[in-house]
Each structure stands twice: as structure tokens, then as C-alpha cells.
């Protein structure tokens, strides 16, 4: 374990990944201080700086009619300018991105953890008991794998309706199969080892054999896969928001920020890059976040791949 951590920190690419992740964690933790919400009761709703459909450039000050609303409600105006500009509909890009970091962590970690648990439970039962249980569970896995992931998630969110919880349900429902396959493969290899036979001969219960003897020896590849999947889960959630079936309108979510930019990719005649900020800032956040997880995951895989061990 120490060897793994030392390698992670000594490898340039994974070090960059770790630093990026650390920055994102800081942003998520200190979101209320970096971008204080205008309404503390609902911080995930992106505040609007104007009613204007067109995006407004960085440094745009809050428009008078919005100011009027806050004054009449007796709400103090904590922030006066949109540092990164506003997206379509006057949504503050900076605020959406900062609070969107929390959304991204939530989506990534919750969906990956739950789908990993489902996959590990299913896969280890299939591998340990074998026979018709194995056959049945693996065919169910095949069936779930037969619909392209994004398409399946899109169908389920269309049916369930918009909302972050629904997006997460869809991602978990079609995201557990990879873990089940990996853990099944590793357990099939370890199952016939002498120490498992010894435990069985001593009369250890099946449940204890799986949890105390098999999983500690097989869980690591699954964890690597999980760390690499956090990025792709966040991408898929963002893609769903981009398609308009993900987070509800105005919710602080990176995919939604990009979808706000979609209609403004081509500026006015003679000024093609007029609305560059509407797509640039959200894109940077998503790409760096996913990149960080991938850099760490890629190095982890190289380190833990026994075939490459000793040559790094």
C-alpha cells in the first residue's frame, strides 16, 4: 500500500492529477465562501444576474431589475458582478461552476460507490456459488450491457423525469455491470486456492469466506476501475443535462452550463468568438475534473497491473 502511494506521488502525471483533485476538493468545501449564495436556503439554484437571453461578458454587473427584486425582498446583495459572465438567461457562470463542483463530486462518488456495491455483491455471489446462480446472474449482466450506457440512462431519466436524484438512479441502474464482471473473474481465480479450501474445511460460513477471505484478495482491481469510472459518470451526468433530460433548469450543474452555451457557440457576424466565455469556463472545469481522475486511475492501473510490476 505504501509502495502504491509513493508511486502515485513520484509519477508526474498522477501528481498533476492529485493536485487537481485537491484543488477541486477545496473548491467544493469552500463553495459558500468562494461564491456566497444569494438565497442561503437554496444554494444549488444558480442566481440570475439579468433576464437577458443573450450571454453577457465577464465582469457583467447585476442588472437593475434584478437588484430591485432583492431590495424589495430585503435580501442583501452579496455579489454584484458575474466574474465569468452570464450564460443564456442571465445565469451567473462563476456561481454555477463553483457549486457545480459539489454536484460533480456528489454524482461521481455516490453513483460509483452504490454501483460498485451492487456489482461486487452480485459478482461475488455468482462466482462463489457457480452453477445456475452464476449463469442467471451473468445473463442478467449481459442483458443490462446490451443497451448503450448513455441511451439506457437517457431512457430512464426521460421516464423518471428531471432531477439529480433521478440522474443518479439511472447511472447506478446501468453502471454496475462492469464491477460484477471484474470481481467475478478475480474470485474465480482465487476460489480454488488452498486457503479457501482450508477455510471451508474448518466450517467457516459461506458469507464469512466471501467477506473475510475472498474480497480482501480481489477487491483492488475493482477499486481501480471505480476510481477511473468517477470521471465517466460525471461526464455522462453532464451529457444528460446537456441533452435536456438531466438536472432541473437553473440547477448548479456543469452539463447544464454547457447546454446553456449550446445556442451561442457561433457569435454575431464579424465577431465569431463573441460568446467564448459561455462555453470556455464550463468546459475547463469539466475537462480538468475528469482529467484528474483519469490521470490518477491510469497510473494506479499501471502500478497495480502485476504483469508490469517491477518494470516501472
Amino acid at each position: 500500500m505504501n509502495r502504491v502511494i509513493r508511486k502515485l506521488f513520484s509519477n508526474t502525471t498522477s501528481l498533476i492529477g492529485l493536485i487537481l483533485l485537491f484543488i477541486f476538493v477545496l473548491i467544493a468545501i469552500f463553495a459558500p465562501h468562494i461564491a456566497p449564495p444569494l438565497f442561503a436556503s437554496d444554494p444549488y439554484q444558480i442566481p440570475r444576474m439579468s433576464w437577458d437571453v443573450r450571454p453577457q461578458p465577464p465582469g457583467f454587473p447585476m442588472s437593475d431589475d434584478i437588484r430591485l427584486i432583492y431590495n424589495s425582498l430585503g435580501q442583501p446583495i452579496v455579489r454584484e458582478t458575474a466574474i465569468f459572465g452570464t450564460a443564456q438567461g442571465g445565469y451567473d457562470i462563476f456561481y454555477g461552476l463553483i457549486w457545480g463542483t459539489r454536484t460533480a463530486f456528489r454524482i461521481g462518488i455516490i453513483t460509483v460507490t452504490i454501483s460498485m456495491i451492487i456489482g461486487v455483491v452480485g459478482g461475488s455471489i455468482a462466482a462463489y456459488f457457480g452453477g445456475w446462480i452464476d449463469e442467471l446472474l451473468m445473463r442478467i449482466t449481459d442483458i443490462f450491457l446490451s443497451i448503450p450506457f448513455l441511451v439506457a440512462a437517457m431512457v430512464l431519466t426521460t421516464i423518471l423525469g428531471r432531477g439529480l436524484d433521478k440522474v443518479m438512479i439511472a447511472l447506478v441502474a446501468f453502471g454496475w455491470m462492469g464491477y460484477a464482471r471484474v470481481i467475478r473473474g478475480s474470485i474465480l481465480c482465487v476460489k480454488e486456492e488452498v486457503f479457501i479450501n482450508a477455510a471451508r474445511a474448518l466450517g467457516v460460513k459461506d458469507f464469512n469466506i466471501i467477506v473475510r477471505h475472498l474480497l480482501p484478495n480481489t477487491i483492488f482491481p475493482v477499486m481501480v476501475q471505480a476510481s477511473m469510472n468517477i470521471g465517466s459518470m460525471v461526464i455522462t451526468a453532464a451529457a444528460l443535462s446537456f441533452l435536456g433530460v438531466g438536472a432541473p433548469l437553473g440547477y448548479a450543474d456543469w452539463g447544464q452550463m454547457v447546454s446553456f452555451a449550446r445556442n451561442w457557440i457561433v457569435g454575431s457576424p464579424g465577431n465569431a468568438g463573441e460568446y467564448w466565455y459561455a462555453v470556455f469556463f464550463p468546459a475547463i472545469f469539466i475537462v480538468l475534473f475528469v482529467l484528474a481522475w483519469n490521470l490518477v486511475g491510469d497510473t494506479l492501473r499501471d502500478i497495480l497491473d502485476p504483469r508490469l510490476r517491477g518494470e516501472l
Partner: protein
Amino acid sequence: MLSYIIRRLLILPIILLGVSFLIFCLFSLLSPMERLATYVNNPSVLKNPQAAQNLIAKYHLDDPFPTGYFHWLKSLLRLDFGWSPTANQPVWDAIMQRLPATMELVLYSIIPVIIVGIWLGVISAVHHNDLADQVIRVTAIIGWSLPTFIFGLLVLFIFYGILGWLPPGRLSTWAQYIVYTGDSFNSYTHFITIDALLNGRFDIFWDALKHLIGPIITLSYISWAYLLRITRSSMLDTLRKDYIRTARAKGVDERTVIYLHARKNAMIPVITVAGMMIIGMLGGVVITETVFTYPGLGFWAASSAQQLDYGSVIGFALLFAFIMVIGNLVVDVSYALIDPRVRLE
């Protein structure tokens, strides 16, 4: 070999049945009334409670789960997928009308992926940990980290917004007029590039190609990053095998070792992955076509999803699942043809 293919073919109907059952389970999350909306082409019927009840009974939407599934399956086999308000035509017709555009896009995307991905993967493995390897690896990870919709918007921004080279859509307006309304243009294959050549209209061919390049790049870049990683690790694995050491020890030229001994054997896992990746492109089609407003199946499915046109979305999912199951079968069989060890399991 034959027995292997037969065995695989026997599983096929079971998997197809399972997939249709899964999709029916998703469909059943909707209330009978919402499901009824996918069958009627005149929404005013739904406002009349009595008529709606009759229709629900007619389509067996309120039946117990098993009989409901049975009747739904029967209507699928009659190619009755319901009505699509988004396309304003039956779902099946909508699918058939849009399929060629998507096929044209996907087929043109496969070729560069396979060539570039394998080529770079081999280079990356041979120069393991060299500068070339690091550059290729980091580029691939960055490619892998760029979501399709952001990459697509970037392509659109640079090549359409700034340079004006690659417009969105499938054809320019003048070309649309000739292709869809004129009598002079015959559609043989519904692949516009090929039809244009067959009609001898090079201007239309060029126009269609210009509209295709952006979506092709967007759809395929993620796949080449993936293929590159697989080729690299498979090649690294093969280069450590005993027979490679033997070949080197007996003094075989390094080029021969790499390209003749190692690459051939390293290709076995790559071929499976390449097959699955091409199938995986089907998912990317939705995003790519939406970004470029390319009028194929994916664009239609995305706009149907936004307008809660359940019937179209379900029909689209069924079609893609069907293609994926058949594609997996083809991959497995060709894998067995290449690697005799698979058959003996």
C-alpha cells in the same frame, strides 16, 4: 467451429427476449395513460376519459404485467412501435427514415479510428516510457477526458464559427432542394455521399462531405483514444512473452519481432475491443448529432426525450439494443475465428 456458432445463435433469442423485457420494465414505470399517449396520433382523444379507457383496454395497457408484456411484444413483432409526435409519423417509419443518415456517419467514423488507434498504440508500446509514449499516452488521456459534447462544440466553434468551413446539418439548403425535391436526383442508397457520386453530382458530394467531417471527428476521437490504450497494453503484454524473448535471443531483426511476431498476437484482444467500440459509438451518436444538428436517429431521439415523447425514445432504445446484441454476436464469432483457444472453452 460450427457448433460454437450454433451455440451462440441459440442464446441470441434469449438475450433479445431479456432486453425487450428490461425495456418493457422501464416502460411500465409510466402510468397506463402516459403509455397510451405513445399509441395515439391525436392527443385530443386523451381528454375524453371514456375513449381513453377504451383505448387502454384495446392496447392491453392496464393488464397484469405478464399479459401486458406479451401483447406489447406481439405489437413489436408487427413493427408497431407506436406514434411519434416529435416526428409526426409512426415510430417505425421515423426510424427507417433516419437510419441511413446515422449509418453513413458511423461507417465513415470507423475507418480512421482503426487505422490511427492501432498505429499509435503500437508505437506507444514499443517506445514504452519514452518521450513518444508519454506524449501519446497523455494525449490519449486528455482525449479520453474531453466529453463528446464539449469536443463537438469546440469543433463547431473553430471550424464553423471562426473558419466557416464545416457547417452543421447534413446538407446546405440549395443541395437539400436538389436531393429531396428535384426529379433529377435519384436516391439509390440514401447515403448522400454515395448517391451524389452515382448521380455524378460532385458539388453535392463535396457539400455532404463538408457536413460530415465535423461529426466524424467528434464521434471517433474518443474511440481512438480508447483503442490506443488497449493496443498499448496488449502490445506491452505481448512484448514480455517468452517467444518474443526467444525471437530476440536468436537474433531476429527488431522490426520483424515487433511487426511480425508481436503485433499479430497483440491484435487478438484489440479486435474484440474494436468491435465493441464500434458498437459503443452508437451511444455517442446521440450527443454528436445533437451538437451538429445532424438529422439522424440520435438527434431525433434526443429531441424526443426533451419533449417526453416516450414511444420514440423506447423505439430508439429497442433498435440500438438490437443492433448491439447482433454486433456482439458478430464480434464473438469473429473472435473465435481468429483465436482458436476461444472455441475450445
